[in-house]
C-alpha cells in the first residue's frame, strides 16, 4: 500500500503520526477562515449543543494542539471539502514541521515532499517558489491594490501579453513590466533559477530571501535532490496563507498538482504561538483514477453448483483451491448474478479435482 510506504518514509525521518477525531469544534474553522481554501464546512450540533464540524483540514488542528515546542508529525486522514459543487471525502497524507525553523528544517520538509513524489512515480517534478521574494519585488513597484492583484494573476498564468497590456494602459512602467516578464519566464533547476532571480533583485529584503533560498538549495543537494527541484514563480496562489517558500509536486499525465505545501508562519502567529511552520499535503483520494487499476476481475473462479450438490464437500473442495491462493466465488446455479467478472467459470461436479479449475 502506497500510504504505508509513505508512512515508513516519514518515520525514517523521525516524524510522529498525528491522529485526530473526525470532528472538531466549528469555532476553530470560523476563526481561521482565511486559512481554508473554501468556506464550505459540514457542521452539526453535538448532543450537548456545541457546534461541531467534519474536519476540512488537518493543519489547523495540529497547530491548535501545539504548545510552542518543536514538533515533526505526519498524518493520513480523511478531510471533508467542497469540490465541484458537492462535499467530498478526500484522503490526505501530509507532513508538518513546527518550531524554531532553520534552513535545515525547511529543506528537510521539501526533501520529504520530493521523496514522497518519487514513491508515487519516478517521473516527478517538484516546483518551488518564494512568496516573500515575489512580495518584495512587487512592494518595490508601489502598485495599487487592484493592479497588484492583476499582476499576481498574470504571474500565475505566465501571461506575458497581459503584463504588456497593463504597461500599455500605463498601470505599470515599462521597466517594471520587463522585470515581471523576466520573473515569470524563470523555470530552471533551483540553483540556476536563483542566479536568474538574482538579476532582478533590487533591495536588501529580496536579497535576503534569495540568500535563504540558496542555503536551502545547498541542503537539498546534501539530500541528493539538487537537480530535482525547479524554481518557478508562477506558483503564487494563496498568498495570505504562505509567507516563505511554497512548493507543488506534479506527476506525468496527472493534470493537477498532486502535492502542495509551504511555509505558513502567519497561522501560528495568529494563534499567538511564537513558532514557525512548514508542511505539505498529498491528495491521495484524487490520484486514484489516474493509477491504472491492476484488478480486472472480482475473483479468479466462479463456481456454480446445482441443487443436488453435496454442500459440505463443495466447501471442502473450495477451501483447497483457496489454500492454493485462488479467489473463488460460489454461486447456486440459476441465481441472478449481475456485474461480477471472474477469470474463469466452472460448474462444480462431485469428485472435481483442483487441477480442472486452476487458473
Amino acid at each position, binding site marked *: 500500500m502506497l500510504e504505508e510506504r509513505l508512512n515508513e518514509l516519514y518515520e525514517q525521518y523521525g516524524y510522529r503520526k498525528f491522529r485526530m477525531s473526525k470532528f472538531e469544534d466549528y469555532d476553530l474553522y470560523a476563526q481561521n477562515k482565511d486559512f481554508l481554501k473554501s468556506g464550505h464546512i459540514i457542521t452539526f450540533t453535538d448532543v450537548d449543543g456545541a457546534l461541531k464540524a467534519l474536519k476540512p483540514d488537518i493543519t489547523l488542528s495540529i497547530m491548535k494542539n501545539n504548545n510552542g515546542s518543536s514538533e515533526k508529525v505526519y498524518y493520513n486522514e480523511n478531510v471533508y471539502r467542497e469540490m465541484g459543487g458537492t462535499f467530498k471525502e478526500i484522503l490526505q497524507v501530509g507532513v508538518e514541521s513546527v518550531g524554531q525553523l532553520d534552513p535545515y528544517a525547511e529543506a528537510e520538509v521539501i526533501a520529504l515532499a520530493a521523496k514522497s513524489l518519487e514513491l508515487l512515480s519516478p517521473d516527478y517534478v517538484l516546483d518551488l517558489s518564494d512568496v516573500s521574494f515575489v512580495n518584495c519585488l512587487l512592494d518595490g513597484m508601489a502598485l495599487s491594490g487592484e493592479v497588484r492583484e492583476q499582476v499576481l494573476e498574470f504571474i500565475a498564468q505566465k501571461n506575458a501579453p497581459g503584463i504588456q497590456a497593463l504597461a500599455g494602459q500605463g498601470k505599470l512602467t515599462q521597466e517594471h513590466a520587463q522585470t515581471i516578464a523576466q520573473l515569470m519566464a524563470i523555470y530552471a533547476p533551483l540553483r540556476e533559477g536563483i542566479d536568474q532571480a538574482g538579476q532582478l533583485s533590487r533591495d536588501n529584503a529580496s536579497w535576503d530571501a534569495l540568500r535563504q533560498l540558496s542555503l536551502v538549495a545547498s541542503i537539498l543537494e546534501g539530500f541528493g535532490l539538487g537537480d530535482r527541484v525547479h524554481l518557478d514563480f508562477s506558483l503564487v496562489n494563496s498568498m495570505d496563507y504562505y509567507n516563505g517558500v511554497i512548493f507543488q509536486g506534479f506527476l506525468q*499525465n*496527472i493534470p*493537477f498538482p498532486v502535492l502542495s505545501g509551504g511555509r505558513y508562519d502567519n497561522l501560528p502567529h495568529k494563534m499567538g504561538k511564537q513558532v514557525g511552520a512548514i508542511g505539505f499535503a498529498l491528495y491521495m483520494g484524487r490520484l486514484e483514477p489516474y493509477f491504472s487499476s491492476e484488478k480486472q476481475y472480482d475473483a479468479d473462479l466462479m463456481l456454480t453448483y446445482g441443487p443436488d450438490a453435496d454442500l459440505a464437500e463443495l466447501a471442502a473442495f473450495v477451501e483447497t483451491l483457496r489454500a492454493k491462493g485462488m479467489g473463488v466465488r460460489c454461486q447456486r446455479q440459476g441465481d441472478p448474478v449481475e456485474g461480477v467478472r471472474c477469470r474463469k467459470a466452472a460448474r462444480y461436479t462431485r469428485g472435481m479435482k483442483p487441477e480442472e479449475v486452476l487458473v
Partner: protein
Amino acid sequence: MINVALPKGRLGESAYERMAAAGYDCPSILEKNRKLTFENPEKGVRYFWVKPSDVSIYVERGAADVGIAGKDILLEYRPDVYELLDLKMGKCRMCVAGPEDFYDDPNRQLRVATKFPHIATEYYDSRSRDIDIIKLNGSIELAPILGLSDVIVDIVETGKTLLENHLAPLETIVDISARFICNKVSYKFKHEEIIRLRDALERDL
C-alpha cells in the same frame, strides 16, 4: 510529441496556418476525411479539432498540451492554464449592445442576455449595477428585439449583424484575440518542446 487542440472553424484554420508557418505543419490535416486526430511524427505534433469552448477544457485537463483559444473563452471559463502568447488574430471586442437609442435607466434592474454570464456579471459587478442575467446559447441579437432583454453582452467583430437588426455596440468591455495556452503540468514535463513552439510562434507575430 505535443498534443495541440485547435478550435473548429475559421479561427482554428488560420491558427493551424500559423502553426504550419512556424514549422509545425501536418499535411494530413487538409485531407477531407473522418479522422479525428492528425499526426506528424517528424515535427513532433498531433492536432485535433474540438468545439471552440472545449479547447480550454482539453488543455486544462491535460488531454492537449497546448491549444488555441479565444480570450473570451478564457475570461468566461477561467481555466487553470498558462496563457503564453497573444496571437493577435481573431480580433474582436466583447461589447454591451442594445437598441441604437437605448437609455439605461439606473432605477431599473437591467436585463442582460448573453452567452457569457461570467464576463457579464463581473463587468456589471465592477460598476455596481444590479442586473438580471439571461443565459442563451445562440441568436443573442434576438433577445432585445423580442423584449426578452434590454441589452446583450456579446462578441462584436464588424458590427454588421447588430446594424442589420437596428442594434448598436454601446460599451466595450474588453478586447478579444486568440491566445496560445498551455497545460501547467505539460509545461514542466515537455518544457523544451513547448518553449521551442512558443518561440517559433512568437517570431512570426
